[in-house]
C-alpha cells in the first residue's frame, strides 16, 4: 500500500527536533525528504553530534537522538558555503513541492534561497521558515531551544507545586510541538495548493506556538485578568476533582487519578472503600469536592500508599475510574500492553547503530501504509543517487564535485564509520 503523501518531495534544511521533527512526521506519512547537510557549519546539524551514541563512541552517524528524529529521510551532503553548492540546491528546487528550513533568520537569504528567490524558481512552493521567535518583531533574532520557548510562553511557569519555583516540563515539549505545528503548517500549505494551485510561505515561531498552547488560560488572563499560578497536579480550573498523582507502594511509584462524572466518583469511593465519602452530599458535586480537595486527596493517598500502582490502576479502570501509572520509558517499553498491541515501538536495524527502537506514529489510516519504515540516513548517503536521478548529473561530474569538496557521500560502512 502507498503512503498517503507519496509523490510529495521536500527540500529539507531543518535542524534539531523542532525543525527536523516536522519533516520526520512527513516522512512517516510517505513524503520523500531530502536533507541538505554538511559535516561542518553552516549546514551542520548539531544533533548529529549529540548523545547517546552507539557503543558510547561519538560520530556523525552514531547519535541515537539524531537517528530517532530523522528516520525515513535521505541525506544529500552539500557544502552550502560554496557557490557551486548553492547552485545545486537551486537546481533541486523545481523538483520539490516543499522547502523547510530552521536556521536563524537571515541564513537562507544569504544563500539566495529565501522565499522570494525560491518562488521565482517554483511559484507553487510551500515554504516553511521555522525559528525560535519568528522572522519579524523585536525578538526576531533571539535564539531558542525547547526550554526557552517553554519559559517565554508561560508553559514553564504554570507547571509546578504551589509556592515553589517552576517545575517546568522536564523535556523539550515545545521542540515536539514546534515540530508538530510545523508539519501542520506545511500540510495546510499543501492542502491549499491542492485547492488553488498556489504556493504559500509560513513564518513559524516556536515560542509563539508555545503561547497558543496555553489553552483556556489565555482567555482567563485576557478577559478575567487572572493571575494563573501552578497547583501541582490538581486541575487548574477544578473541572476534575479529585485529580492528582498519589504515592503507591515501592520506590517513587505514583498513580494518577482523575474524576469528573458522578458515576466516576461513586466508583472511586467504592473501590477505595470510602462509603462515608460516597454518602456525603457536600461531595456529590464537582464544586463541593473542590472545596474539600485536601481531605479527599489525603484519603486517596492513604489508601494507595501501600498498594501496587499497576494493580490499582487496573482495578480502578475496571470500575470505570480514569487512572494511569506515572510511567517511565522502561514501563512504556516493557509493561504497557496497549502500546505493545498498537506497535508504538518499531525496531529497525542499521549497520552502525544496531537494532534500535523508534517511536512510531499514533495513527493508522485504512487503505494506506503509514509509519516508521527505514532508519535515519548516514550523512551524504543519498547524495549521488539524488543528483544523478533528479538532476541527471553524470558520474564524472559527481566525482569532480566530490574532489572539489562541494558534495560528499557515504556509501560504505567504512565511510559511514569514518565521520
Amino acid at each position: 500500500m502507498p503512503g498517503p503523501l507519496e509523490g510529495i518531495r521536500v527540500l529539507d534544511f531543518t535542524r534539531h527536533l523542532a525543525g527536523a521533527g516536522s519533516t520526520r512526521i512527513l516522512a512517516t506519512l510517505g513524503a520523500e525528504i531530502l536533507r541538505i547537510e554538511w559535516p561542518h557549519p553552516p549546514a551542520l546539524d548539531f544533533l548529529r553530534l549529540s548523545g547517546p551514541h552507539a557503543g558510547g563512541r561519538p560520530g556523525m552517524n552514531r547519535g541515537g537522538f539524531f537517528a530517532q528524529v530523522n528516520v525515513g529521510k535521505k541525506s544529500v551532503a552539500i557544502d552550502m558555503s560554496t557557490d557551486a553548492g548553492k547552485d545545486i540546491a537551486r537546481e533541486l528546487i523545481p523538483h520539490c513541492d516543499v522547502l523547510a528550513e530552521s536556521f536563524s533568520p537571515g541564513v537562507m537569504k544569504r544563500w539566495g534561497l529565501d522565499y522570494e528567490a525560491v518562488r521565482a524558481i517554483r511559484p507553487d512552493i510551500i515554504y516553511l521558515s521555522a525559528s525560535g521567535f519568528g522572522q519579524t518583531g523585536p525578538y526576531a533574532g533571539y535564539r531558542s531551544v525547547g526550554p526557552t520557548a517553554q519559559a517565554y510562553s508561560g508553559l514553564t511557569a504554570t507547571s509546578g507545586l504551589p509556592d515553589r519555583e517552576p517545575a517546568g516540563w522536564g523535556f523539550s515539549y515545545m521542540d515536539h510541538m514546534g515540530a508538530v505545528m510545523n508539519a501542520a503548517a506545511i500540510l495546510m500549505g499543501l492542502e491549499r495548493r491542492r485547492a488553488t494551485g498556489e504556493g504559500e510561505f509560513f513564518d513559524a515561531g516556536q515560542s509563539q506556538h508555545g503561547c497558543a498552547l496555553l489553552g483556556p488560560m489565555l482567555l482567563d488572563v485576557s478577559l478575567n485578568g487572572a493571575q494563573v499560578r501552578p497547583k501541582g497536579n490538581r486541575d487548574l480550573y477544578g473541572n476534575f476533582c479529585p485529580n492528582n498523582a498519589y504515592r503507591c507502594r515501592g520506590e517513587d511509584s505514583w498513580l494518577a487519578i482523575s474524576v469528573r462524572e458522578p458515576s466516576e466518583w461513586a466508583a472511586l469511593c467504592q473501590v477505595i472503600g470510602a462509603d462515608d465519602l460516597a454518602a456525603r452530599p457536600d461531595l456529590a458535586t464537582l464544586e463541593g469536592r473542590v472545596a474539600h480537595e485536601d481531605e479527599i486527596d489525603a484519603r486517596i493517598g492513604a489508601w494507595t500508599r501501600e498498594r501496587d500502582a499497576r494493580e490499582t490502576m487496573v482495578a480502578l479502570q475496571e470500575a470505570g475510574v480514569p487512572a494511569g501509572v506515572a510511567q517511565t520509558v522502561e514501563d512504556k517499553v516493557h509493561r504497557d500492553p496497549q502500546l505493545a498491541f498498537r506497535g508504538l515501538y518499531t525496531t529497525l536495524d542499521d549497520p552502525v547503530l544496531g537494532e534500535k527502537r523508534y517511536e512510531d506514529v499514533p495513527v493508522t489510516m485504512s487503505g494506506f501504509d503509514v509509519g516508521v519504515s527505514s532508519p535515519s540516513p548516514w550523512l551524504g548517503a543519498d547524495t549521488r543517487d539524488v543528483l544523478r536521478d533528479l538532476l541527471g548529473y553524470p558520474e564524472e561530474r559527481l566525482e569532480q564535485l566530490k574532489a572539489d569538496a562541494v558534495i560528499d557521500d557515504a556509501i560504505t560502512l567504512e565511510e559511514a564509520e569514518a565521520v
Partner: protein
Amino acid sequence: MSRTLEHLTVVELAGPRTEWCGKLFAQAGARVVLVEPPGGAETRGYAPWFRERRDGESSLHFWHYNTDKESTVLDLHTEEGREAFLRLLAAADVLLDGGEPGGLEGLGVTREAIEEANDRLVHVALTPFGQEGPMASWLGSDLVHQALGGQLMMNGYDDMPASPPVNGQGNQAGHMAGSWAFIAALTALQAGKGTFIDLSVHDACAGMTENALPQFDYTGKVVTRRTGRHASIAPTPAWQHRAADGRYINAQLVNVSPRAWEGLVSWLDEHGMAEDLTDPKYFVPEIFREEADHISEVIGRFVATKTADEIFHGAQARALIFSSILYPKDLLDDPHLAARDFWIELDHGEPDGALRYAGSAFVAQNSEVRPRRRAPHLDEHGDAVRQQEDQA
C-alpha cells in the same frame, strides 16, 4: 485576504477530544459544523467562566476551543437526527469523531452507512487508547494521559525529597493528540480518497518524550526528573535562577559558542561578578563540563543582582538562549507578540462588545490563519444548516 483552508467543510462531533483539532481547521477558514447533543457540548460546562457567569454560554474553555465554528443540535439517538447527520457528512470533507470506540456504531451510524453517504470522507476517530487492544475501553484525562505517556514522571523536583512528579498544565494531552489528528486529516486529503483514521491519545503522548527512549535504548538507563530542567540519566547543573525582582530565568547552557561564552563572561566581568570564569581554561570542553555546577552558581549569583528582563534581553544580545520565565498574564503586554499581531479582538455583540482573544500562532503570507468569529451559541446555526440541507 483568503483563508488557508476556506474550501474545506468539517463536521465535528462535539467533545473534549476533538475541540482542538476542530479549532485548528476553523481558524484556517474551514467551515466547521459543531454537532452538539440537545443539552449542549460537555465542555460548555468547563471552567474558567467569563466574569463569574456560570452558564452554558459563558465557559471560556468552550469559547477558546470553538472560535469560528457553527453549532447545530442533533440528537443522534433519534432516526431523524441520524439522517440529518449523514446528510451533513455527505457534503463534508472531514469528520472529527471523539467518541468512545464503536460509539457511532452503537448509535446505528455504521462505517458502511458513512461510506455510503460519502466515500471520500476522511473520518478521524480520536479515542483515549485506540479502537482495539487490551486497554481500548479504558478512560483517560489530561493528567492520566501525561502519566501513562511518560511526561509526568519526567517533571518535578529532585531537590525536594519524596515530592511528586508534576504534570504540564494547559490541556496538553488534548493538544498533542488533536494536533496529530489535524496532521493526519490533512495528510489523508492529499491522497484524495476516503479513509478511517484510528488515533490513540495514549500513542500521541507516549511518542513525545524527546531523548528518553534513545537514552534508554542506548544506555539502558532511565531519565529521572530534575528541578526546572530536563530529566536526565545523571545529575546536571541548575538552569533556573531567581532574579532580583523575584522572577525566574531559564539559563540553559547548551551548544555555547566561544563567542557567546566570551560575551557572557565579559558581561559578568563588567559588573565585577565573573569570579574565575575569565580563566581561558573554560574554553576546554572537558573543563567546561566538569565545572558545570560552579559555572551555574556564578551565573546564579549574577542573575540575583538583575531583573529578569535585564537578564533575558542582555543574554539574548550575547547570543545566549536564555529566557525570562513568564506567566500567562505577562503575555498581554509582551511587545514581541504585539508586533506579530498575536492578540486579536472578536465581536461578542451586545452587551460585551469586542473581547480580546489570542489569535493563531500560524503566520502565512498569501492567506490567513486566524480566528474571526466567537464561539457559537448552542444551535446558533441550526436553522441555517437545516435550510442548506433542504436546498441540497
